[in-house]
């Protein structure tokens, strides 16, 4: 994990400008962004430094599900929406999270503290239903346990 606030320039000088560098740079820029996204200015800077067209950078950035072009919350809550998690009770988990965060799937809370996303298979079907919060996996969830994880996140931020 890169330091928050690291500049695009610093990231590019670390990763380099080889032909394979575009995707790693986009991911690192997103990691360094407090709002977990890649903005237009960053894409333009990457294009200029890698000597690629801006459309080419946008084409790659917009293709991948894990790269966001819109600002997201400080905490990212991802719910697996595939069949094994669906059968294990995904709907109840989503309902509980939506109630607790007062947003619906795909939205960011008004205070920009949380984004709730549906994602495809987390490869944790032995633990379904599973969610990921800030990259950490939680499995065998109940609705109450999912809400607890959110509350712990809030407490963690408050302290």
């Amino acid at each position: 994990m890169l330091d928050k606030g690291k500049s695009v320039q610093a990231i590019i000088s670390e990763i380099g400008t080889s032909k394979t560098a575009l995707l790693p740079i986009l991911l690192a820029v997103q990691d360094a962004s407090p709002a977990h996204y890649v903005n237009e200015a960053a894409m333009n800077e990457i294009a200029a430094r890698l000597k690629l067209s801006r459309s080419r950078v946008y084409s790659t950035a917009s293709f991948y599900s894990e790269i966001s072009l819109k600002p997201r919350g400080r905490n990212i809550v991802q719910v697996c929406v595939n069949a094994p998690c669906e059968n294990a009770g995904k709907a109840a988990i989503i309902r509980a999270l939506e109630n607790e965060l007062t947003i619906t799937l795909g939205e960011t809370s008004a205070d920009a503290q949380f984004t709730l996303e549906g994602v495809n298979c987390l490869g944790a079907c032995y633990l379904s239903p599973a969610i990921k919060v800030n990259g950490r996996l939680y499995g065998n969830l109940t609705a109450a346990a999912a809400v607890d994880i959110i509350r712990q996140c809030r407490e963690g931020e408050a302290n």
Partner: protein
Amino acid sequence: MNIRRNGQSDLVFNIEWQGGQTGAQIDLPDYLARGGYQALRRALATDPAQVVQTVKDAGLRGRGGAAFPTGLKMEHVRDNLELERYVICNADEGEPGTFKDRFVMTHLPFQLLEGMTLAAYAVGANRGIIYIRYEYPEAQASIRHSIAAAVEAGLLGDNILGSEFSFHLEIFSGAGSYLCGEETALLSSIEGKKGRPRLKPPYPTQSGLWGKPTLINNVETLANLPAIIGRGAVWYRSLGTADSPGTKLISLSGDVNNRGLFEVPFGVSFREIIESCGGGIKNGRKLKAVNIGGASGVVVPPHELDCRLEYGACAKREITIGSGAVFVLDDTRSILDNVRNRAAFFLHESCGKCTPCREGLRQVNRIIGALCGGAGTASDLAKLERYTRTMQQAAFCGLGQAAGNTLISSLAYFRSEYEAACRDVQPAAKKEGTA
């Protein structure tokens, strides 16, 4: 979770997989104590062509889903006149219901690294890449540490084990795309483009990364190589069946008592997998259907489960072993709901390059939505079949070709459930269909 050995005490992976996130990893000293890197030592003393021959003799086939003979793939790269070659490990495990590669990377990383090094030696490549999906940060960390440890121990990098052979390995992270598990889309992704597939032929073995000959194999396939080279083709063929030698990692999920990862020799039946590995159906319920091969696999009723896990036997019954995902549905589950979930998944992951997949999936989703909302008609079922056949026959890549497998198989085996959801089908048929 224990591996069920079905009478054989010694398989390819031989590890007690732990559920959850913190299972014990076999680190480098442990791996060496288990006889790790003996195969590489032996291989480096022989001709690379001999390594390829042993893999061919062992009858290893690709474990990512396509089941292409691995030795043949290696030979194609080896025989290429171009000297700059690559070995790529496809660790973009995106097939819903599959988690075997995650476990290999977090629990047995050195078996994968040794396998990749063996493959590189066999095909004459000096550079390799492990393409790991973004959703597996634990696996990326495990492989990153393991590469550093292997380099430190002289098992990777320049002049491996004092030989002339050098092999440099790096990690490339995906960014959330199921399609990048398709080998040519994966290559595009590494090259900094969006992960769209390329036309085959030319195959990656002729024109792969940057147009150079490239061996692309799944994690499980490569992790089989140390066992094959270390213990020989004859030993390997003593596992499994004549048609399908070796073992398969099975990702078992759904309504069974024990979910998890199991290593089973080829030749066991799907019923045995569900009963002896899975410990039967949860809460004493009855088995309704099993989805084999993940989202791109098929849905079959209980009477098909005596089919043996074997490429030939499965092909005859149109069962796709795929990546080895086995997802069990009990008698409370709706087939239509599960098909709707699969269709939504493929619509999200389709890249939009070709019309059959892009438009076909849109129509399929519309029709299944109508069926689930009680607004479907019998003519919709005929359309579903037609659109799915079109995707199977005309889609550009494997994603679109396989996207309708769940649909077509469930329409064949569970048609009454579809008919029950149609508003213009006779009530008699409806009664039979509603389980």
